[in-house]
């Protein structure tokens, strides 16, 4: 996947979203929807052309229709479609042009000019605009041409896609005309595909072979189905008699399947990466408290839960600005979880240094306490956290690969958090002191480092990061009192697997576990994949008790 493709995908995506408000109008859908505001004189021309339909005789109809088609108005395809489908009527009393849909008590009618609903009337109150078969054929043509030539690229794209399903010789002609004037890249691509598909159905062998060759690497599912259809057998005989065509089709199918697999692989890798990012986020705070300080904090998961609930509360406080809520929630969660962390360190852990098993039990008690606190304050039920608009949706790279935006942002976010932590530890005075205390407490103390203060700050930092991870998790999973428990075992596994006291180890371990999990899932199922990984880590720890990236030197002796 190249960068330009990615950019193009993003661009199309943005375009689609910008048009989101009135794309449903697209004539292909044939829905009676949203009135479009146009200038008055346009409406007058449109109204006149439409009204001429009801006065025209069948002979004059052809001309009237063509005149209507020549009016440059987005409502025109809709009218022609209704005419073709026999839904175009006019009221007998006022002579208003209406769309009519049969209901149980009569006909529900909608004004053609304004698009407004009028109400339900009896059958005798309206009269259908009649057409004949010759008119039907030319209407089909006109509609297709209109849809191709007017409107925005997205509209044209869907028109082409609709045509390529049941391609007729005359529409192929239309498409060829359009290809010469079409500017938009994706529409041109779609037209080429449609034409190639049309050529496959033609009688000329060279044209067919060339068409098949042109479809190489095309990921449109329609193409894949059509090519596969060429290889189908009717009992013992191939439906397609020509062996050359069959061979060519087979080669192209192989090429397409290979590409499909590649994109599926990329998709799995993306899912794995996003799961890995979540693991890294949830484990990285632990990498500081457990990895650097050697404190087992079983309440780590509950600190993440606090972060998630902070998001919930922030959104409650600013319901008008959901889009901004996360930017408020991140620092808020950091401070809240950090303060809780400092309180836990000063109140409990401080007295238990050097007794890791007791620390484990005491912090577990804290975790139970926090869980129940949340249960009593909010509710035992899950709370719903809203995903801001800019985080929902997905980027469609092509018809096979689409990346959900929230996962994408989680990956970016976890990388940012990782880099921030890394620079805090390596570039700031606090980081220096933290590392000094971790390596040799008494020596650091002798050099004038306030070890107690450093302990509290380190623990606060690790806890704050847990809170920030909670904000990210609130966008992915249910926010409930058990949120922390679901992640605590995983986070410990990541830290232990990566090697204690090493942030890079945590990153590598988290990402590789996430990716391995997602690649195992299709074969083993979600639960079994997780079990397999746990068993793998249990065995791995036996082989390398100090993880992937063990600490060396004096620090390792501690």
């Amino acid at each position: 996947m190249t960068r330009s493709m990615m950019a193009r995908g993003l661009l199309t995506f943005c375009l689609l979203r910008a048009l989101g408000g009135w794309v449903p109008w697209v004539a292909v859908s044939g829905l009676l929807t949203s009135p479009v505001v146009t200038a008055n004189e346009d409406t007058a021309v449109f109204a006149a052309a439409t009204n001429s339909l009801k006065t025209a005789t069948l002979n004059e109809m052809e001309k009237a229709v063509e005149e209507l088609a020549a009016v440059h108005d987005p409502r025109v395809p809709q009218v022609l479609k209704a005419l073709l489908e026999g839904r175009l009527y006019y009221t007998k009393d006022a002579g208003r042009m209406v769309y009519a849909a049969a209901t149980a008590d009569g006909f529900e009618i909608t004004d053609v000019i304004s698009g407004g609903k009028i109400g339900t009337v009896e059958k005798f109150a309206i009269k259908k605009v009649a057409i004949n078969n010759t008119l039907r054929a030319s209407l089909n043509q006109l509609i297709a041409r209109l849809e191709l030539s007017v409107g925005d690229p997205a509209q044209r794209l869907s028109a082409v896609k609709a045509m390529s399903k049941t391609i007729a010789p005359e529409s192929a002609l239309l498409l060829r005309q359009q290809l010469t004037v079409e500017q938009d890249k994706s529409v041109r691509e779609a037209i080429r595909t449609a034409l190639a598909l049309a050529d496959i159905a033609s009688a000329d062998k060279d044209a067919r072979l060339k068409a098949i060759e042109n479809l190489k690497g095309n990921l449109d599912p329609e193409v894949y189905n059509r090519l596969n259809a060429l290889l189908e057998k009717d009992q013992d005989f191939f439906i397609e008699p020509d062996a050359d065509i069959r061979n060519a089709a087979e080669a192209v199918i192989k090429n397409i399947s290979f590409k499909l697999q590649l994109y599926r692989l990329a998709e799995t890798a993306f899912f794995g990466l996003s799961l890995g990012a979540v693991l890294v986020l949830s484990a990285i705070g632990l990498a500081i408290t457990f990895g650097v300080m050697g404190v087992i904090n079983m309440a780590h998961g509950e600190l993440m839960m606090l972060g998630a609930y902070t998001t919930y509360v922030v959104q409650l406080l600013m319901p008008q600005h959901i889009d901004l809520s996360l930017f408020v929630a991140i620092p808020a969660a950091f401070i809240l979880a950090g303060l809780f962390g400092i309180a836990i360190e000063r109140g409990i852990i401080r007295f238990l240094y050097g007794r890791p098993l007791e620390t484990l039990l005491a912090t577990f008690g804290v975790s139970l306490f926090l869980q129940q606190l949340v249960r009593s304050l909010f509710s035992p039920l899950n709370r719903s956290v809203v995903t801001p608009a800019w985080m929902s949706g997905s980027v469609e790279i092509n018809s096979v690969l689409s990346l959900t935006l929230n996962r994408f942002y989680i990956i970016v976010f976890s990388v940012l958090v990782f880099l921030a932590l890394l620079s805090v530890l390596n570039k700031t005075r606090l980081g220096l002191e933290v590392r000094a205390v971790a390596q040799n407490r008494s020596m650091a103390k002798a050099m004038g480092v306030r070890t107690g203060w450093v302990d509290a700050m380190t623990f606060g930092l690790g806890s704050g990061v847990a809170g920030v991870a909670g904000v990210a998790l609130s966008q992915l999973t249910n926010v409930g009192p058990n949120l922390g428990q679901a992640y605590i075992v995983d986070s410990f596994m990541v830290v232990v697997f990566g090697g204690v006291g090493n942030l890079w180890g945590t990153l590598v371990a988290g990402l590789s576990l996430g990716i391995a999990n997602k690649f195992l899932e299709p074969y083993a199922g979600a639960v079994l994949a997780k079990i397999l990984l746990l068993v793998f880590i249990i065995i791995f720890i036996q082989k390398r008790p100090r993880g992937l990236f063990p600490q060396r030197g004096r620090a390792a002796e501690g």
Partner: protein
Amino acid sequence: MRWHERIAGDRGDKLLLSVLAAVTVLVPLLNLAVPATSSLHLSTYTVTLLGKYMSYALLALSVDLIWGYGGILSLGHGAFFALGGYAMGMHLMRQIGERGVYGNPVLPDFMVFLNWQELPWYWFGFDHFAFAMLMVALLPGALALGFGWLAFRSRVTGVYLSIITQALTYALMLAFFRNEMGFGGNNGLTDFKDILGFNLQADGTRAAIFIITALFLALGYLACRLIVGSKLGRVVVAIRDAEARTRFIGYKVEWFKLWIFVFSAVIAGIAGALYVPQVGIINPSEFSPLNSLELVIWVAIGGRATLYGAVIGAILVNYAKTVFTAAFPEIWLFALGALFVLVTLFLPEGLAGLLRRREEPAT
């Protein structure tokens, strides 16, 4: 010290064993012989509840043995308990026979429901009581042997060991939640009818199981006391206090740890097997890491490395749990959380330590 002096040599031991003996005789008597109208009558519910506490006490003993004496904090001991429970549950399941909802003589209800045609191979033999009882000890023992051999041989110690034992029970929980495993998935094994031909709901059977549980608790207690008083037990304590030094003296530290770990797992398995017929169900939530952590706190509250502390702690905490979850369900987790914190901070030797301090005010 001769063996009979070792047993019941301590004052705590004597007190505990005599209270246990009195309870074992009195409770079934008050339940069966005293008419229901009398105020002295104990309901069958109470008997079962006490029996449940005693199976927990046996489980706590097994944890005290490895944590209190061996210094190995296992956060996955619930897994051995649950495995023993599942072995018993599988036997009870096979005893249901045609009385299940679907009336299949061979397959348990949940397998019929999953449309399975025949019994999986690992269910064979569980219709025999003796085989099932063998499995109650063998399954947890084998798991502990395999896991312990790997862990102790590569010198995984301290919190690392605790965390991977937690991962072990977590992995087992996930596995047992799967329907494909053939252990009833989410619902586990339940709806038991009888054991060795006696109706499980009958008062007499309940009382009998209570007595058997009490006997096993006493036996387990004496066995643990014998072990910790023996030379083997003292080596284990030495390993707890100075592992490297013990190794340098020439003891094979791994083998001692492995032995005590496996023995403890077997006791936990037996406790699980006694637990299941009394509560009438075994499901994957028994594997949850929370359960294993909770039982560690029983021991911590009672007092480590005393054995009787574990028994007292298990019974007290569970009694408190029964009372609190019924009366103020909101408060229970607050109370449990506070217990964890307070005990580790202010009562490192547990209740037993408190008693000892009372006895020896001079120190």
